């Protein structure tokens, strides 16, 4: 069984919501659609107070190349264009819409039958993906059209589809593969056409045997697509790790996957591409997992963008008693939410409720030089050294030690027997070093 070669851990999987069918969350009275929830520039609002919008209508125009459009997820009247607290407590621009009915744009095909043939040219597909505002739904929310247009002189050979879902608790991609397998396959053929590649590989971790078997069965009728089961190991869902696991190629430090002739796309993104190209439906809803050790009915929910997370949680059975922390995203990479009154964003893959007995950090003690963090680091860094340098603000040394390669997977903090806050300090260093590199580049220009 394949897996990536350097480092990695195996946290307890806790996939309580596996096998739960995707449920649709009822529409609330009001949604708040964030305009700045992806990497890159926030988009510009193109609606104003009092405008009536339909489902799928453009409300935020991309501002610049690395930026994505935002579409209304409901029909109703715009009550204001203002700022809204996001999950980190800072205020971001957002469009507030009061829901009236559920009226969709006429251009969206609402039938559920699968459209396999795609007659569009490469350019047409790219334009459709760009105008549908599709971003990477794995978490980093990088605009998909940028990824799909490799820089001149670079050519992709293989398309990798990321169905790994290595985070504990999360099952939204798993369930999507089981329920929308055919659609994902069509999405893959569309992406293959855009990138002009002959081969596509779907990487799925071995704990999702049913998905592996199901996709293998239907992949027979799609030439060039192969399903590869992978050994369960965190952080296999990181694109550099996945490329290493499947192709045995290492992305050079500071470079992107196209450098080794590949492009990685998440299964949820692929499904969104299918919907955008074949059905004309922009990215305005996604599947998210609600789970936790003490959650009554963990499940997978199809949620429209901009719905308050508290609304989703209420429909899923409310916050369990004795909850210590609520995490947005998976427990490894996600961040604690400071309140639940934040709108659903394109990158929200799940909500995990952590009971208070598990949510406390242990007292941090001295480093005992056991080098466990070095062993598990999937990027081959030395987390203990980077932490010490960050504490002492030795930025140049950190840069030499390749701090910018850190993918912030948290394996080092997870494995440390002394509870050292490794990732906290490394992230601090990474932010500062990144800032220094950017300002140095700006000074050169």
């Amino acid at each position, binding site marked *: 069984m394949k897996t990536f070669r350097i480092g990695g851990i195996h946290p307890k999987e806790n996939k309580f919501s596996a096998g739960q069918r995707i449920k649709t969350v009822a529409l609330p009275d009001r949604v708040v659609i964030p305009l700045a929830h992806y990497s890159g520039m926030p988009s510009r609002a193109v609606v104003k107070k009092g405008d009536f919008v339909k489902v799928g209508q453009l409300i935020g125009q991309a501002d610049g190349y690395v930026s994505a459009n935002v579409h209304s997820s409901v029909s109703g009247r715009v009550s204001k264009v203002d700022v809204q*607290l996001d*999950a*980190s*407590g*800072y*205020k971001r621009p957002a469009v507030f819409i009061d829901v009236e009915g559920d009226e969709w744009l006429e251009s969206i095909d609402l039938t559920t039958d699968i459209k396999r043939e795609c007659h569009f040219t490469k350019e047409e597909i790219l334009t459709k993906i760009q105008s549908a505002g599709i971003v990477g739904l794995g978490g980093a929310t990088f605009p998909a059209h940028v990824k799909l247009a490799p820089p001149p002189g670079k050519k992709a050979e293989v398309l990798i589809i990321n169905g790994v879902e290595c985070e504990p608790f999360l099952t939204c991609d798993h369930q999507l593969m089981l329920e929308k397998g055919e659609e994902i396959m069509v999405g893959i053929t569309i992406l293959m056409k855009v990138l002009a590649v002959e081969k596509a590989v779907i990487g799925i971790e071995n704990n999702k045997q049913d998905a592996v078997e199901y996709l293998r069965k239907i992949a027979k009728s799609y030439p060039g697509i192969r399903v590869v089961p992978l050994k369960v190991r965190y952080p296999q869902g990181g694109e550099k790790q996945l490329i290493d696991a499947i192709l045995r190629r290492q992305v050079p430090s500071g470079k992107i996957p196209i450098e080794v002739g590949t492009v990685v796309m998440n299964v949820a993104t692929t499904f969104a591409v299918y919907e955008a190209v074949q059905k004309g439906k922009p990215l305005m809803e996604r599947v998210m997992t609600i789970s936790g050790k003490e959650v009554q009915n963990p499940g997978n929910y199809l949620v429209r963008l901009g719905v308050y997370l508290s609304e989703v949680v209420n429909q899923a059975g409310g916050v369990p008693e004795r909850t210590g922390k609520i995490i947005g995203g998976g427990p490894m990479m996600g*961040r604690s939410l*400071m*309140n639940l009154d934040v709108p659903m964003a394109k990158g929200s893959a799940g909500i995990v409720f952590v009971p208070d007995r598990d949510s*406390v*950090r242990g007292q941090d003690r001295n480093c005992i030089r056991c080098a466990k963090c070095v062993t598990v680091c999937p990027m081959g860094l030395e987390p203990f050294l980077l932490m010490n340098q960050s504490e002492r603000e030795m930025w140049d040394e950190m840069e030499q030690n390749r701090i910018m390669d850190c993918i912030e997977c948290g394996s080092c903090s997870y494995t440390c027997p002394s509870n050292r*806050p490794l990732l*906290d*300090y490394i*992230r*601090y260093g990474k*932010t500062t070093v990144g800032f220094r590199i950017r300002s140095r580049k700006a000074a050169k220009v």
Partner: protein
Amino acid sequence: MNTILAAILILGGIGILLAVLIYFVSEKFKVIEDPRYDQVEATLPAANCGGCGFPGCRGFAVACVESDSLDHLNCTVGGIETMEKVASILGKTAVAHTPTVAVVRCGGDCEHRPRMNEYDGVKHCFIAHNLYSGETGCSWGCLGFGDCELSCDFDAIKVNPITKIPEVDEEKCTSCGACVRACPKMLIEIRKKGPKSRRIYVNCRNKDKGNISRKSCNVSCIACNKCFKVCPHEAISIGDNLAFIHDDKCKLCRKCVEVCPTNAIVELNFPPRRKPVEAEGETLVTNK
């Protein structure tokens, strides 16, 4: 015996040869430095704080010697006494600079700004600031983990354990600006110390609209314009939903302090107000 002699002669010979070489090289590449650099540096406090804007005391000494006048140069640590000593060495005249002090512009203590969540990451302002807005509803206010305290070389700024807001010791503060650079929320400002340490400033940095900032903190500036209107010296400007008092124009009349509805404008080290003002206020109320 011969071996020992040979060794002494060879090593000694090499030594003498190199010594001569080094002598000529050092003569050839001699850096002729103004001896006044050392003299000036010796009078400086050797705090190397960077408050003067130069890299350490040596850098400041060089700048003092090289510049034509000492008008724009000031050692914030030593003050006018040090500058007079420097001036006497250099034969220039020292100019007294207005003494300045660091001011923390956040009044959101535990009483006025309730904590809404608990942060259990590394207790470091910068790390918390990178991660999220902070334990309170105000994303502009003090985080209270004491990066400023760590940055201070003079032990002049301390986080009060009860209010969780840093307090500046005026006696010790040299206004070097280390805390200004350390604060990720940019709350600390170097202001004029004022006569008898009397100062008036807006104790808030919340740039949200009034209704939003008021929800998260009782003593936030809501940019209501009252102080702007009442100020007879045009010392107050309003921008970004925030009032700012320019210390070079402020005449310390305290009118703005009286009108501020949220007590966001703070007066420091003033004697208690005279009775008549209060009495007047009372009569007004009774007349109504």
